């Protein structure tokens, strides 16, 4: 379990800054970083494991260019869910494998939708089908699919 009392030290912060743009694809990808940080490659790897264990990073792995590989349909489904059902409905929505993100967010006078799910798939039809399935499973019928038509920017969250 992650321990919320643990804080990152300076070396952790430097390690994240040195790796956040991606490690090189070579036999020893941590060699240069270990030199910069003055520690062994084993220590670098161990620190990454600890950062993950303590929740500072969600994972260490690849970000995929999903458009390049044909996963071009990307729908933000927004749902108007009665407040007292959010906990239950959110859990059901999160259970769908096609749903990559699921959040509750505030409503506004001209924005009644309080649950957000991201659905990524190969075609819009697939996304629509998933939304229909979610609607059937939860009984929520007031929803909107907002397709992304262009990507203006996508960088990971940076330190």
């Amino acid at each position: 379990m992650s321990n919320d009392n643990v804080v990152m030290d300076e070396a952790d912060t430097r390690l994240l800054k040195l790796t956040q743009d991606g490690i090189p694809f070579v036999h020893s990808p941590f060699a240069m970083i270990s030199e910069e940080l003055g520690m062994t490659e084993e220590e670098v790897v161990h620190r990454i494991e600890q950062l993950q264990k303590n929740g500072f990073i969600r994972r260490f792995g690849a970000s995929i260019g999903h458009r390049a590989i044909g996963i071009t349909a990307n729908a933000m489904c927004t749902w108007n869910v009665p407040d007292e059902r959010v906990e239950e409905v959110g859990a059901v929505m999160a259970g769908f494998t096609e749903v990559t993100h699921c959040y509750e967010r505030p409503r506004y006078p001209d924005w009644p939708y309080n649950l957000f799910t991201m659905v990524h798939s190969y075609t819009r039809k697939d996304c629509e089908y998933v939304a229909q399935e979610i609607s059937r499973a939860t009984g929520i019928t007031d929803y909107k699919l907002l397709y992304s038509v262009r990507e203006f920017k996508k960088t990971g969250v940076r330190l």
Partner: protein
Amino acid sequence: MIQLDDIDKNILNLIQLDFPLDVHPFEKMSFQLGISEEELLERMDRLKEEGAVRRIGPVINTKRVGGISTLVALKAPGSKIDEIAELINQHQEVSHNYLRQADYNIWFTVSAANKERLEQIINDLQEETGCPLIDLPTKRLFKIGVKFDVK
């Protein structure tokens, strides 16, 4: 769109959630995939070049490292979309920015070191763009596990 063979697909499925944390991660992966490390590295370079892999690195948990983030939806007039998207992108704290088909047509995420800074950026953006916007911070998180199942 790039052509992927079965080995490429296996690679893409493996490196998202199961990238081995090891001094020689690609060597370890190559054993799992049943190919040589050399071939794997060549394939990785190609996947990167063609945009299938953006990077291999840490996925930072903003909240846990002391930061704060939000989602903002903005109503931009059709004729000014490019100009406004560019104004938004210029802020380094904006990590994702998309055009979507809806009244609120520009959707972007902002991360900052603290609440004051985040509010400052949103105020600046409201002034710079002159467009109505709504701030949609996460109230409850049910799932965040982006993994693309490459078929």
